[in-house]
Every structure is written in structure tokens, then in C-alpha cells.
């Protein structure tokens, strides 16, 4: 276990770690562009220069293995000057794009200029001109002038997505990142290159010019796109959620996240959401009434539920463990409901796995639902059997899926549910096929509620409410609470 001292602080690190990793543990800041924990070492940006005793030349910290008794300095004047000039070399051909660059506010060039630069630039020659706004594929746009050629994205397509689309073409300061004509950057993890790009060269088409970064706040949650349970950061502000980015979690998703997960924020925003209770009146008009307060609606449902003899429950694996607990406690424990159906979305590709992060099981909490069912020793019937005894149910409580994109069979299943007498559909997003139902209750999306998701491996991960988009929406626990109130059944 070699021991080294950096700026006077000493630390013992396992054999084979590099100086930059040791510095990270001592949280000593070392500037770096091309170094990334999840990728191989390129040693090309030359920002992480440090001085090592008994070594005349400055060494790059990212590739320097720690040897015993090594003494490293990162903040003496010589290193500061070297890092300042490395930064200067990055900036001399960099276009003055900060006003129109999406990365402004979280761009490493800006950050490091404030930490290591603050010099008056001396470059007054003409800058190298390259192409702007080159579309690399369906989701990523490249600006070759802003690119500092740190080759992170090239290494990502070589080592992580293993699709080899990006490469550095030409030589010297005419080098550009580009793809071959017939191979655009369209693999399932292409937007990761946008996260790891330290500057604004790679921008995601979905988030392009949507919002300035300093107007956004982040909070951590779990992606509900599939059962891998990647840790993500969601960026939001007063008028909604704007983007989703991965958060480092070595065991579950490493540094990466798939492109489908990037779109999950869309179904939490206002334009897709059911904002108020929708009730289809039974009287003459049969008109639909909107806007009734949820508590009142639940009271009415509660009254009808009391006389209901045969109740059906249709669950999808999109909700949290706590919600299943409350639901099963109430319906199975108190109302002795026996017919509980489990709406599994894609039977065929359920167990597929693409080798990195994308799993066929597109629900975040399948394991959670199965465990809750076992705990309440409830037999989950497949939803196709609902058809047989559909008309016999005079009540059907449907916990509709939140991420409708992965439920292609919604319209067909809703026709089936309509056969039962009264359908109470608890859904966060509206859908035309829900219109026939008696009740539609606005549900909270996964960014608005606390809870736990259990991923495919059984790892339980907490999600917390970070943003309030539809104030009137309720979670399943609140639905149960509302029903118990009106039915006078104590939990």
C-alpha cells in the first residue's frame, strides 16, 4: 500500500491508483478535461500537470502511478503557471460562443478560467474556423469549433457503447470530431457523450436552447424507464422539468444512462398530465365533469365502494413499494378483494438485456410489486384473464401506468376494462382511451412523490419528491386514505 503526500497531506492508497485518484480522495482539486473515471486515460489535455519531487519535468497526474514516498505539489507557482498556460492553449482557438452555448454556466472552460486563469488573453491572431452545428445523429449536435479534442466522446463510443461511431479526423489543430457518412451517432447511449463533454461542443437536440442552466435546480431520483433503476439527476424550475442526467452509482449504473431514460421527464410535465378529476355522470346528460376536488371525488367513490360486492384491482409495476403496501393493506386486508390483476406490458421482450443498462422489463418496481404480493399472499392474475369475468365486477380500480410509451396495448386493454360496471382510473398522464371510465383521478408522477423502487436485482432505492407540478395530484396512499375516510374503515 504505497503512501504519498500531496501538498503536505499524506494518504495511503492501494497499489496501481494514479495521483489524480489519490488527490480526489484528499479532495484536492486537480484540473482535468480528458480524464474521466469511467473511461481509459488519454493524457491529451495536459491540464493535470503536477510537480513531483526529484523529477525535473512536470508530470500529468492522471497517468502517474503512485509509488511509495512520492511527494507531489499541485499548488506551487510553477504548477499554477503551467496549468494557466495549458488552459490558455485550450482557449486561443475557442470561439466566443458563450452567449449562445447551452453549456454556459456548467462549462469546464469557464469554471477553470475562474479557478486557474484570470489572465488577460494575448492571442490576437485569427482563430481556426471549423463547421458549426453539425448534426451527428437523431439526438446529438456537434460544434467543431468549440471542441477541445479531449477525445472523451471518442473513447466513450469505443469503450462503453462499443459502436465506434466517433473519431478524430485530420491532424494538428485542423483535427475535428466527426462520424462517417453512413454511421451517424445513433446508438442507445449517444446522449451520454453530451454529459461527459466538458465544453459545449456536444449538445443534446432535446434540451437545445430550452433553458439556461443557471435557471435550473437539480434533485436526485431513480429513472422509472426500466427495471435497471439508474440513479439520475432531474433538472427543473418553476415551469416544469427540463432534462434528466445520470448520477454516478458504481453498483447500479456506473456513470452512464440510456437515451430512453432521457425522455422520462416528458410525461411528468404539465402538457401530458391529467390536472383534475374527470367524472362521467350517470344521469341524463352523461356529460363529463371536470375539476371536482379529489377528496370529494374519493368520498363519493368510497360510498359506492361500500355497497360494491365484487371489486377488481388492476396494478402496474410503475408505483412505489409504499403505495403497493397501502393499496394491498386496504383492498386485501380490509375489503377482502381477491381478484387482483397484474398488467405486464411487454411479455415477449420482458427478460431481454442489451448488455449494459437497457432491460426488457420497462417497469421500475416489478420486484417491489411481486414482493408486496407475496407478503400479502395474494395471487397476481395475468390481466388477460380480466376479460372472462369483466362484466361481473361492479367496481374496477385501475392503477394506470405512468410511462405510457412502454404500454403499447393501452387502448385495447381499456376497452376490456370498460366492460366492468364502474372503473376508477388513477393515472398521472391523460389518455384518450381513458375517456370512457367513470372516474379519472390525477396521480402524482415519480418526481413528485417519496417512495422506494426495487430494481431487477432487488436493490431498493429511495426516490424523493423534488418538484410540485400538479398540486392537486395524489399518490396511491392518499387515494387509500381518502377512501378510508369516507368508508369509515380504520386502517
Amino acid at each position, binding site marked *: 500500500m504505497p503512501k504519498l503526500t500531496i501538498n503536505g497531506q499524506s494518504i495511503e492508497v492501494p497499489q496501481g491508483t494514479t495521483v489524480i485518484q489519490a488527490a480526489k480522495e484528499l479532495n484536492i482539486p486537480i484540473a482535468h478535461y480528458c480524464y474521466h473515471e469511467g473511461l481509459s486515460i488519454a493524457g491529451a489535455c495536459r491540464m493535470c500537470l503536477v510537480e513531483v519531487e526529484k523529477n525535473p519535468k512536470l508530470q500529468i497526474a492522471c497517468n502517474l502511478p503512485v509509488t511509495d514516498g512520492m511527494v507531489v505539489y499541485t499548488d506551487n507557482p510553477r504548477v499554477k503557471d503551467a496549468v494557466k498556460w*495549458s488552459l490558455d492553449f485550450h482557449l486561443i482557438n475557442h470561439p466566443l460562443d458563450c452567449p449562445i452555448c447551452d453549456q454556459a454556466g456548467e462549462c469546464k472552460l469557464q469554471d477553470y478560467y475562474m479557478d486557474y486563469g484570470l489572465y488577460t488573453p494575448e492571442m490576437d491572431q485569427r482563430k481556426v474556423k471549423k463547421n458549426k452545428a453539425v448534426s451527428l445523429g437523431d439526438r446529438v449536435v456537434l460544434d467543431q469549433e468549440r471542441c477541445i479534442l479531449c477525445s472523451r466522446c471518442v473513447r466513450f463510443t469505443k469503450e462503453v457503447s462499443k459502436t465506434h461511431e466517433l473519431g478524430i479526423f485530420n491532424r494538428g489543430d485542423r483535427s475535428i470530431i466527426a462520424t462517417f457518412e453512413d454511421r451517424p451517432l445513433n446508438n442507445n447511449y449517444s446522449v451520454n457523450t453530451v454529459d461527459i463533454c466538458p465544453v459545449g461542443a456536444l449538445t443534446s437536440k432535446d434540451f437545445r436552447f430550452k433553458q439556461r442552466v443557471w435557471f435550473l435546480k437539480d434533485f436526485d431520483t431513480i429513472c422509472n424507464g426500466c427495471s435497471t433503476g439508474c440513479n439520475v439527476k432531474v433538472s427543473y424550475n418553476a415551469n416544469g422539468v427540463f432534462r434528466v442526467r445520470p448520477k454516478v452509482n458504481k453498483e447500479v449504473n456506473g456513470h452512464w444512462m440510456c437515451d430512453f431514460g432521457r425522455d422520462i421527464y416528458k410525461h411528468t410535465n404539465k402538457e401530458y398530465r391529467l390536472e383534475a378529476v374527470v367524472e362521467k355522470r350517470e344521469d341524463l346528460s352523461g356529460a363529463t365533469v371536470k375539476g371536482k376536488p379529489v377528496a370529494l371525488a374519493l368520498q363519493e367513490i368510497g360510498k359506492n365502494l361500500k355497497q360494491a360486492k365484487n371489486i377488481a384491482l388492476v396494478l402496474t409495476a410503475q408505483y412505489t413499494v409504499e403505495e403497493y403496501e397501502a393499496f394491498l393493506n386496504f383492498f386485501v386486508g380490509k375489503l377482502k378483494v381477491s381478484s387482483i390483476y397484474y398488467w405486464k406490458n411487454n411479455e415477449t421482450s420482458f427478460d431481454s438485456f442489451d448488455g449494459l443498462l437497457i432491460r426488457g422489463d420497462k417497469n421500475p418496481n416489478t420486484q417491489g410489486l411481486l414482493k408486496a404480493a407475496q407478503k400479502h399472499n395474494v395471487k397476481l392474475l395475468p390481466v388477460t384473464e380480466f376479460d372472462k369475468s369483466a362484466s361481473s365486477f361492479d367496481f374496477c380500480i385501475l392503477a394506470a401506468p405512468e410511462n405510457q410509451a412502454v404500454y403499447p396495448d393501452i387502448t385495447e386493454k381499456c376497452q376490456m376494462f370498460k366492460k366492468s360496471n364502474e372503473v376508477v382510473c388513477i393515472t398521472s398522464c391523460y389518455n384518450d382511451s381513458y375517456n370512457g371510465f367513470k372516474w379519472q383521478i390525477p396521480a402524482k408522477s415519480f418526481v413528485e412523490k417519496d417512495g422506494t423502487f426495487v430494481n431487477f436485482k432487488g436493490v431498493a432505492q429511495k426516490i424523493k419528491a423534488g418538484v410540485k407540478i400538479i398540486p392537486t395530484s395524489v399518490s396511491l396512499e392518499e387515494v387509500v386514505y381518502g377512501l378510508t375516510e369516507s368508508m369509515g374503515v380504520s386502517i
Partner: protein
Amino acid sequence: METKLLTQHYDKPEYQSLKGYQKLGGYEALKKAFSMKPQDIITEVKNAGLRGRGGAGFSTGMKWSFLPNNNEPRYLLCNADEGEPGTFKDRVMMERAPHQLIEGMIISAFAINSKKSYIYIRGEYMAPIKIVEKAIREVYDAGLLGKNILGSGFDHDMDVYRGAGAYIVGEETGLISSLEGKKGQPKLKPPFPAVQGYLKKPTIVNNVETLATVPWIITNGASEYKKYGTEKSPGTKLFSVSGNINKPGVYEVPLGIPFKDFLQNECGGMKPGYELKALIPGGSSCPVLTRDEALKSTMDYECMSQLGSMLGSGGVIIIDDKQCMVDLLNILMNFYHHESCGQCTPCREGTGWMNKITTSLLTKNGKLEDISLLHKIASHMLGTTICALSDAAAMPVMSFVTKFRDEFEYYAKEKRSKVKGDVHYAQAHH
């Protein structure tokens, strides 16, 4: 007093063919080498004090001893890229005596127990490639290559690999990347080539002249070799001399010969009407020497590094008083800006910046503070990159700007050359 150890028979055309080479004493060293143990060959070369002739001047024996003694396959690569401006000695050796090189490589391969070796020849050298390939075929037919050479149980294969015209592959790891079919970009060096080089296997890269000297050392012995040259840099070296002198060309002289005599005798002195103003001793990447520094210098590694320059690959460029130093520096900077591989930022951006500054000086819109800026940029490119191209670009700039600052200031102030007067450069060598 040109002492011809290697170039003794270069003037005879039949020396190029296998039979002619064997008649003049070729491949005797090979038989002698097979009789010795590989380790003895390495110690013999180490005792001879043979230093790398490619540019770094690192002791060859020492380099060979860095090989780890595991049974991984080893590779021997001959660096015949010779991209350094002002150097053309390897070409002469390959054209006049290909077998000298081949014999040296077989002996070296036997010494380091390598089954496979490549000769990486610069893409532009069409003639030498044909000659060396023909020579290799002759050697294969003669049974001196392939399986069980001369019954010694040592089998070895040799190929020629054509470069693709990049100066950067003259650098060890750049050459290895190019050989592996990748883009010719240097690799990171804590894993040194001796440990992990070509296809991640131990690899030794040597210059043409270094390998060609090995047979002479084996036949005549290390002590004989040490008689020539100085104590620290023994033996002879081929110098390719260019400039306004009477007899430019390739000369083999013992190391340590004073430059003044070398200029007078071998090179036939300056052309009439031209005066020596400056000297680039070892190819364009070596710092320049002023007139009096050059005249008191001797041609060996130690003296050159004392004067702040390098012997390098022996490309002697004589600069006379009719040349404008700013123009010269611009030509060099344009070369390095074009040849930088673009992997590391200081070199990729720095060479471009310096090139544009010298261009702006020549096209009459240079400023006085540009000169100190040039020096600042160069000083911050030294030693901050993966390979030495950044230093090769920085060192001429620092030496030109410090030793000939008056010409640069004159250009900045008067907007015309101190030597050549008003010369119009449209874009100045862009």
C-alpha cells in the same frame, strides 16, 4: 580526415548486392555473432559505448537491457522514417549498403531474441524501399533469414513497412502506433516501448545507423571501436551537411571533431561571398548556435549540450549571412504546425499560434511584444506534452529569439528584413 568505418565501400555499386557485400566481408559478423551468446553481444555493444544515432543519443546497450526477461515475443523495429528536416544520411546508407543494415538487424534480433522485425521506411523514400526490399529477398533466398538461419536454430522474419508521410512517426511510440495500423499518434509513456510497445509486446526501436554499426563492432570488437571519437561518445557518425558550402553531402567523421576543421576540410568551406552566421547542428529541432559558438564547438553529444544545443540526428544546416532569421523561423514553424499530430493541446495550439505570429511578423503587421510572447509560448510548450515534437518546435523558437533578437525587433519596428530588405510575403509560407 574522414575515417570510413561504415562508408568504406559506399562508392562501389556492387556493395549494394548480396554477393558484392559478402565478397567485401559481409555477413562474417553474423557468423561470429551466432557463435557468441546473445548476452555477450549486448555487453559487447554496451562496452563499445554505442549511442543511438537517431537523435536522443541514448546508449543502445542500455536500451536493449531494459527488455524484461519473460518469454513474451519481442519485436525489433528499425526507425528509417528520417522526417527531421536537414537529415538525409539514412537514405544514403539504405541505398548504398542495405545489407549492412539487414546484417546489423539480424545480429541485434539474435541478441534480444526477437523473432520478427520491421524496417519502417519513410513513405516518400521510394528508391530506398525498392532497394531494401530487393535486398531482403536476396537474403531470404540465401537462407540468411527465415527458419534456422545458418543452422543456428535462430529463426527470424523481416519486413519493410512504408510510412504515410507524417513527421510524428519518427517518434518511437508514434512509429509503433502507425505500425499497428492506428493513427500515428504517440502513446502515453509510463508503459515504455521496451516493456509494452508494438501490439503491447516488448519492442526495441533503433535508428538505421545504430543498427548498421553493430556488425562492425562485432567483427572488430568494442575496444577497437572506442579508439575513434571521444571518451563519452565513441565511434564515428554520419553527418548530412547542407547550406551554402562548396561540398554539401554525407560525411562519416569520428565524433569529437572540431566543427571548424570539419567545415574547412570535408565541406570545402563556405561558398565565396557567403559568411557563416549560424549553425543548426543536428536537424531542425536543435537550438541554433551563433557563429562564434559554432566555430569553437566540437561535433559530439557532450559539447553540443554544453552549448545548449543537441547533436540530434546529425543534420548540419549551415546558415550564412544572406539568410533572414525571421523567414527561417517561419519556415520551421510552418513545418511544425503542419506536422503536429494534434493529440496534446499545448503542441496542437502552440505550434499554430507561433506560426501565425511569425507569419504576422513577415506580413508586416507584427508587433514588438510579439517577440517576447513567442518566447513565453515556447517556454510553456517545453516538457509539457506526451512526445518531444512540442519541445522540437519550442527549442528553435527560443534559440532564434534569444540569439537573433535584433533581427526580430528590426522586423517588428521597420516592417522589413534587416538582411534582405523589403521582401513581400503574400501569406508567408502558409
